[in-house]
């Protein structure tokens, strides 16, 4: 499989604080990677570096064999799409207008089919003429996901498999729409897209991704298949909780236990 994105020894400093420290990561076309780790581990920083939004203090990011800093914003948008957390739209754009923003300079007529498909996929076809600021947080998040899917599709039509970055895409979604989103992302991966997502729900991350990347304190703590990464020990060391890890059909399943127990076993 061809490499879509490659990060080499990435470090990011803000003042004296090290947000990220020597992280290397390579993701191939069609691969699905979930980034997990406690708050402040550097997950969002890593994603913003991979998106080209932030520049690393040290190291480099190569997107499709080219330094990510050498792309113009427009070229970059045609090769990677990113869904952020907490987007607050102040003007009364309709859902359809927001989703159409993913289509770049294409006219509504040219992009119409893509917009329709994306709205169907996130289950918002009946809300297309509603004004976005009047929708609930989860519905807004789904609308933005549809916009990102349109951007990805437009870019992939011209440049082949791209990169899809998702920053806690399920944070405002109910259970059903969490699954829907994860499945939509997996379908993109099946079509060759490299998908990288930050997820907080461990069990969702395990179902979503074949490969888990664990960050802790700005460093890469683990990177590997889910069965290797998700163990009682890793979860205790990284999240400082005691958890029971079951296996169901060869897929790990995490059941968190008391925090105090973990603290005690750490101390001993």
């Amino acid at each position, binding site marked *: 499989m061809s490499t879509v994105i490659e990060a080499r020894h990435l470090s990011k400093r803000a003042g004296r604080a090290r947000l990220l420290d020597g992280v290397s990561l390579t993701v191939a076309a069609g691969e699905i990677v979930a980034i997990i780790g406690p708050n402040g581990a550097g997950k969002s920083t890593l994603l*913003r570096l991979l*998106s*080209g*939004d932030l520049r690393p203090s040290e190291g480099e990011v190569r997107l499709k064999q080219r330094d990510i800093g050498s792309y*113009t*914003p*427009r070229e*970059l*948008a*045609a090769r*990677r*799409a*990113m869904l*952020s957390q907490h*987007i*607050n*739209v*102040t*003007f*009364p*754009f*309709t859902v*359809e*207008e927001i989703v159409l*923003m*993913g289509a*770049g*300079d294409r006219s509504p007529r040219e992009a119409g089919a893509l917009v329709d498909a994306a709205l169907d996929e996130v289950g918002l076809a009946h809300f*297309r*003429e*509603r*004004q976005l*600021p*009047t*929708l*609930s*947080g989860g519905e807004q998040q789904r609308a*933005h996901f549809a*916009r990102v899917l349109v*951007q990805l599709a437009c870019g992939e039509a011209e440049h082949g498999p791209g990169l899809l970055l998702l920053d806690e895409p399920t944070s405002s979604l109910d259970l059903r729409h969490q699954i829907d989103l994860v499945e939509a992302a997996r379908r993109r991966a099946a079509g060759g897209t490299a998908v990288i997502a930050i997820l907080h729900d461990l069990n969702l991350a395990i179902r979503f991704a074949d490969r888990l990347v664990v960050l802790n304190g700005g460093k890469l703590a683990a990177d590997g298949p889910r069965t290797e990464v998700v163990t009682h020990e890793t979860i205790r060391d990284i999240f400082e909780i005691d958890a029971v890890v079951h296996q169901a059909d060869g897929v790990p399943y995490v059941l968190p236990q008391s925090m105090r127990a973990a603290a005690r076993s750490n101390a001993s």
Partner: protein
Amino acid sequence: MSVAIETEARRPQRHAGARRRSASFAIPLLLAVLAATAVIALTVGAAGIPLSRLPAALGFAGTTTADAMTARDQLVLWSIRIPRIAATAMVGGLLAAAGAIMQGLFRNPLADPALVGVSSGGALAAASAIVFTDSRFGETLRFLQTELLPLAAFAGSLATTAILYGISSRSGRTSIAIFLLAGVAITAITNAGIGLLVFIADDRQLRDITFWLLGSMSGATWTKAAVLAPILVIGLAACTFIARGLDLLVLGEADAFHGGVDVERLKRISIVMVSAMTGVAVSISGVIGFVGIVVPHLLRLVIGPAHRLLLPASVLLGAILMVGADTLARTIVAPAEMPIGILTAAVGAPVFLGILLRQRGLASL
């Protein structure tokens, strides 16, 4: 929180289809209304010219009947009223478009160049130019005042906009509270500067400065209209260039970048445009508030917030409102004239409060 969202969601929505229909009619309709307003403005004033005499006075019909009345009408129209209406329309268009661009840039419907000190920054620079070209350099520079004032006002507006953006945005996010408060502070500083100039100005300069502070179109001439026209044309051309970027900027700077917008360049262009449009308008008309808030707000309700249409429509509706307000200003207390700034504030401030009340439910400032 959830209760607020529920009631918002149930509020009857305009269909995007209806919006699209009104959008396609918007520009021709606004053009027609602007033409009608201009015709009314031509006929009304200290020297009334009834509609029946208008064609002759404009030189369209009956040039043989060059009687005294027609000659008088022609003088009034061509040397006073037409340049004034043209300048007023362009000032209104520039102020409204500058407001719309600024609101897009700051992602806030409450941004207005007059409200946050950009206009006063321009006025301070213009007032400085009046006082200093007069006193320091005497006659050598006074003949340059017509050219110098717009440039000074532009520089003043540019400085205030840049300072405002620098203060209120940090690492790609703009704080609305800090933006508005910084605007209050900048307005206070520029007003102090203007106060100082008023203090040291002589009587004639004082009259000129006062004109800037209240806002008036009474000094409009062909020369001033000629200064406005190129800025308006360049501004309109540039609007088509930044429209998509301003749309995406509503997602925030990071997500506009993810969507392919060169955010830094967009911000630079927008700041220069807002400053040039506001500065030049202020140098001709003085400080006129609220046009930049009211016009884009009304238009967003009808044609939606997409900037490709919003910006040119703002130019037209701004022109209509200003020509209407100016006609009112010069007839309401005829033969005297009311400063137009008073009228726009009297209408605009309540609309501003109305937007605040609506916003209160949607997003916390």
